[in-house]
């Protein structure tokens, strides 16, 4: 998004990426363009907030997955040490041991 100055006047353009190329789309000039720029600014701000929230959430989720994997291993180890094993997803106690 941005204002471009051409022959002393300001014009507002929207930029987007399509297939690796940047497409510049003319929006306008004057109050209408200022309104469009303000609206785009708000949208960008909201997207940035969403991205930040998502990144933070992903970081905690990775830690939670790691704790769960480690705890699961500790639970399994504890049960195996007590003579259990899993059979088709079910914990069973060793019969003769």
């Amino acid at each position: 998004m941005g204002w471009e100055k051409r022959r002393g006047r300001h014009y507002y353009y929207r930029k987007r990426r399509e297939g690796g190329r940047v497409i510049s789309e003319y929006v306008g000039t004057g109050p209408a363009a200022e309104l469009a720029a303000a609206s785009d600014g708000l949208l960008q701000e909201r997207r940035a907030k969403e991205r930040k929230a998502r990144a933070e959430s992903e970081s905690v989720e990775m830690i939670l997955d790691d704790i769960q994997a480690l705890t699961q291993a500790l639970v399994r180890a504890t049960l195996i040490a007590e003579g259990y094993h899993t059979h088709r997803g079910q914990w069973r106690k060793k019969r003769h041991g």
Partner: protein
Amino acid sequence: MAKKTTNDKATQEFQALVGEINHENPAAMDVVALRQALQEDKALWHRAGDLNYLAHQQLMGKLPPHIREGVHLRLEALQEELGYAESPAIERLLIEQIGTCWLNLHVTQLFCAVLTGQTMSMKGVEQWERRLTAAQRRYLKVIEMLTQVRRRLRPNAMQVNIGTQQVNVAGKVEAGKRKARSVTSEE
């Protein structure tokens, strides 16, 4: 694509070792080695505790300051209901994790409510719905793990309910003789 993980090599090796021994007739030597690793290698327990603390702090930091104290008290009550004080190490670890997963679910629900109340793309809404489902799945999974451990290692442990369904039926609880405490996951 390999799954992203923060777990170190020693943790991954321990996980692999447990997977290898988990069959009907493990070698006695392997079981002894595993027992020793559980009792002597405190690094694994510390790592689990540290990760849990890290997640807890990050999640608490996401909450608005005026509700943190209330959430903290609710977490303490939850741990007490689950019998934290009188539980062995493995159960304590699970109870702490239940608290963190409950907190994660609570924070995710809050974010979903706030963000979906604003104008949001369909993709964004779907991502947050997936996140919420994953948070619920993690929470239920760790409750199930606690149930599994108690059912097998402490047959007279307390009753755990998921919704209205009792998920551990360990130890005969006779009416009037022993009052079973009930913990529900309907948060």
